[in-house]
C-alpha cells in the first residue's frame, strides 16, 4: 500500500486498484523533486498534525458542489455522474483508510469478518471523517450478499437539492465511494451505491447499499464452517 497519502501517488491507479501494489520507486530512487529549505514538505510534518483540525463546512460544500458541476459537464445521465462521484470518493477513501490505520498504530486490527468490517466503517471510519456514527447498519434479509448502512443527513448532501428531472441522483455516491475503497482496502471487494430513502424526520436520509462480491461470501462461509 502507499505510504504517502498524496493525491498524486495513487491518482493513476485510483479507479482500478482493488489490491494496490506497492510503488516505492519514488522513495528509493533518487528524486528530482525540489524541496523547500524552510522544512515545509510533507516529510517535515507529523502526519497527526491535521488529525483534529477543522475547516468550514461551507468550504467543503463549495468545493464538493463545484466537483459535482464539473463532473456533470462530462457525463451522460445520472448513473454516470454517480460513478464519477464514486471514483472521487474512492480516491479519498483509500487515503483515509491509510491515515486511520496508521494512527491506530499497534492497536490497528485487520478485520476479517463481514460484520467486523462493516462495524469498522459505520463506527471508526464514520467518526473519523464525519464526527458521528452512521445511523444504522442493517442486513438485507432477502439477499445474503447485501447490507445497508444509513446516514440520516449525509454531510455532502446538506445543502444540495436535487432537481426533479434527476430525482434518482444521490450525491452520497461520493461517500459510497469512500466506503467502497475501505472495503477494497480490507479485501472485501463490493459495490456500494447511495439511495435516497427519506422518512418524516429526515428528508435527506440516505442508504448505502453494499453488495459484496461472491468471493467474500465464500470466504466468510469457510470461516463460519471452520
Amino acid at each position: 500500500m502507499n505510504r504517502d497519502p498524496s493525491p498524486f501517488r495513487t491518482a493513476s491507479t485510483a479507479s482500478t486498484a482493488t489490491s494496490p501494489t506497492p510503488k516505492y520507486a519514488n522513495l528509493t530512487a533518487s528524486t528530482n523533486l525540489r524541496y523547500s529549505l524552510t522544512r515545509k514538505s510533507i516529510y517535515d510534518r507529523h502526519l497527526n498534525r491535521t488529525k483534529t483540525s477543522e475547516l468550514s463546512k461551507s468550504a467543503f460544500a463549495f468545493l464538493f458542489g463545484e466537483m459535482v458541476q464539473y463532473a456533470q459537464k462530462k457525463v451522460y445521465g445520472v448513473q454516470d455522474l454517480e460513478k464519477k462521484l464514486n471514483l472521487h470518493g474512492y480516491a479519498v477513501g483509500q487515503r483515509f483508510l491509510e491515515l486511520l490505520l496508521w494512527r491506530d498504530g499497534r492497536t490497528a486490527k485487520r478485520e476479517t469478518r463481514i460484520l467486523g468490517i462493516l462495524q469498522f466503517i459505520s463506527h471508526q471510519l464514520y467518526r473519523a471523517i464525519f464526527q458521528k456514527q452512521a445511523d444504522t447498519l442493517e442486513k438485507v434479509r432477502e439477499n445474503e450478499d447485501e447490507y445497508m448502512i444509513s446516514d440520516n443527513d449525509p454531510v455532502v448532501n446538506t445543502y444540495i437539492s436535487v432537481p426533479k428531472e434527476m430525482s434518482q441522483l444521490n450525491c452520497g455516491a461520493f461517500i459510497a465511494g469512500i466506503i467502497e475503497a475501505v472495503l477494497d482496502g480490507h479485501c472485501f471487494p463490493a459495490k456500494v451505491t447511495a439511495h435516497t430513502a427519506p422518512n418524516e424526520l429526515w428528508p435527506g436520509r440516505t442508504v448505502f447499499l453494499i453488495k459484496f462480491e461472491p468471493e467474500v461470501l465464500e470466504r466468510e462461509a469457510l470461516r463460519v464452517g471452520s
Partner: protein
Amino acid sequence: MNVSGWFEAVASCSSATTNSRSQALSLHPAASHRENLTSSSFKPPTPRPGHLPNMVVYAVLILNKAGGLIYQRDFNPGLQKLSSNDYLILAGTFHGVHAITSQISPTNETSSSGLEVLESENFVMRCFQTLTGTKFLIFAEPRQQNLDVVVRRVYELYADYVMKNPFYQIEMPIRSEGFDRHLNSYIKPHQ
C-alpha cells in the same frame, strides 16, 4: 419606468415554484425484513434555528441584481394573489424605484442606500440589498419591528441552500427544495 429590458431577460424562466422531491427510491419495501445489526439509538433532528416569535410574514421575494424575480413565495394570507407575470413586472418596477430612491436622497451622505422599509396601511416590507446586488423583500403584517432579524436569516438560508446547491444556476429562478423547506420551518405559517 422602463421595465421591458429585465422583463425579457427573465420572461423565459418560469416562475419559482415549489417542487417536491419525487418519491424516493424504496429499497426494500418490507421494513420488517431487516435485521438490525446496531443498537443505534434514535436521535431527534437537530434543533431548528428559532422560529419567528409572534410575527406574521406574508411573503418573501428575491430579486437578482438585474431586477429579475428569482423567488416568490407566500407564507401567510395577507397579500393578493398575483399572476407570475405580474410579479415579474412588480419586481422590475421595484428594482427601478429602488435605484431612484437612493438618487433622490436629500442628505449629503456619499454612500446612498435605497429603500429599506416600506409601510402601507396593511403591510410593512423590508428590502435588504446585499453588497452583490441581490435584493430580499420580506412582507409582513404592519408595524413589525424585527424584520432585520428575519431578512438576515433568510439571507443565510439563501447562502446555504441556494448558493451551495450545485444544481442552482446563478441569477436564475430558485427551485430548491432544501431552501423551501428551511424557509418554511423558519417562517412557520401562522393560522
